C-alpha cells in the first residue's frame, strides 16, 4: 500500500511544496497577520531609517532617499513560528548589504528597532551576504500597514518574527541583546529547518 500513500501525498500538496516545508509547518495560502501591538501609522515625511550603535558614524535615510537606493525583487518561502509557511512570496526592498556598504563596525549582532517599540535581535552574519532586506513592496504593491508597511525587515531564512514589521533601523551591537519575543521564551536565532522555536531548542 505504500505506493498509494506516496501518490496521495504528492497530489495533496501544492506542486513544488515537497521538501520546502520545515519540520512542524503546514502550507498556508493566505497571509495571516500577527502583531504584538497596534499598527503604527508614521507619515512618510516623518519616516527615516537609521543605522546606529557601533558604527563609525550614524547613517540615516529619509523615505525618498531610501526609495532611491538600489532595490532588489526576491521570491522566498516564509515560515512563521505559529506553524504556517507560505511559499514563493515576492518582495521588493533594499538589501541590508547595501545599507552596510561603507559602514565600519566591529559589531557581531544587530537589534532591529521599530515603530511601536518592537525589537528583534540577530547575529550580523544573518543579515549580511544576501540574506536580509528592508522590504517596502509585497507582490508588486506597496507593503500594507497590517503586514509591516511602509517597510519591514525581511529575513526569510529565519522564523518570521525576526522579519520585524514597521522597522525603523538597525542598532549594531558588540554583545547580543534579546528582542521582544526572544526575551519571552522564543529562540534566540529561530532557524525553521532546525525547528528552533523556543528557549532550550538545539
Amino acid at each position, binding site marked *: 500500500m505504500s505506493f498509494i500513500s506516496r501518490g496521495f501525498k504528492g497530489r495533496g500538496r501544492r506542486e513544488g511544496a515537497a521538501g520546502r516545508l520545515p519540520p512542524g509547518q503546514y502550507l498556508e495560502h493566505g497571509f495571516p497577520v*500577527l*502583531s*504584538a*501591538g*497596534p499598527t503604527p501609522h508614521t507619515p512618510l515625511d516623518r519616516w527615516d531609517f537609521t543605522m546606529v550603535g557601533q558604527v563609525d558614524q550614524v547613517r540615516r535615510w529619509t523615505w525618498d532617499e531610501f526609495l532611491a537606493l538600489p532595490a532588489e525583487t526576491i521570491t522566498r518561502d516564509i515560515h512563521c*513560528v*505559529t506553524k504556517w509557511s507560505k511559499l514563493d512570496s515576492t518582495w521588493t526592498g533594499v538589501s541590508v548589504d547595501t545599507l552596510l556598504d561603507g559602514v565600519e563596525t566591529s559589531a557581531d549582532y544587530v537589534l532591529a528597532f521599530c515603530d511601536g*517599540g518592537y525589537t528583534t535581535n540577530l547575529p550580523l552574519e544573518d543579515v549580511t551576504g544576501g540574506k536580509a532586506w528592508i522590504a517596502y513592496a509585497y507582490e508588486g504593491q506597496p507593503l500594507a500597514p497590517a503586514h509591516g508597511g511602509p517597510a519591514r525587515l525581511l529575513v526569510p531564512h529565519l522564523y518570521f*518574527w525576526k522579519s520585524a514589521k514597521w522597522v525603523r533601523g538597525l542598532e549594531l551591537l558588540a554583545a547580543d541583546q534579546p528582542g521582544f*519575543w526572544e*526575551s*519571552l*521564551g*522564543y529562540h534566540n536565532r529561530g532557524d525553521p529547518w532546525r525547528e528552533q522555536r*523556543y*528557549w*532550550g531548542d538545539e
Partner: protein
Amino acid sequence: MDAEALRLDGNAAAGLLDQIFASEVTTVRGTCAGCGRTSSIGALLLYGGAMGAVLRCPGCEAVVLRAAAIRGRYLLDLRGAAHLELRDGA
C-alpha cells in the same frame, strides 16, 4: 539587630505568594509603569495572537504584562507593570 539577621529565605514568603497566585485573575488590577493608569486585566488590550499574550495599557498602549506558554512552562513578564493589585477572595 542588623538586616542580615532578620533576613529569611524566599520560601518564607510562600504562604503570601500562594495566596496571590491562587487569586481569580479577572479581579487583578494592573498599574501601567509607563503612564500610571490602573486597569483591570480585562480592560487591557490584548495582542500577540498565537505567540503569546501581550497586554497593553488602554491609556498609552505600553506593554503592561506579557505571558507565553513555552513547551510545558509559562513565562510571565511584568516589567511594564508598576504593580498588580489582587483582591483577597476569601
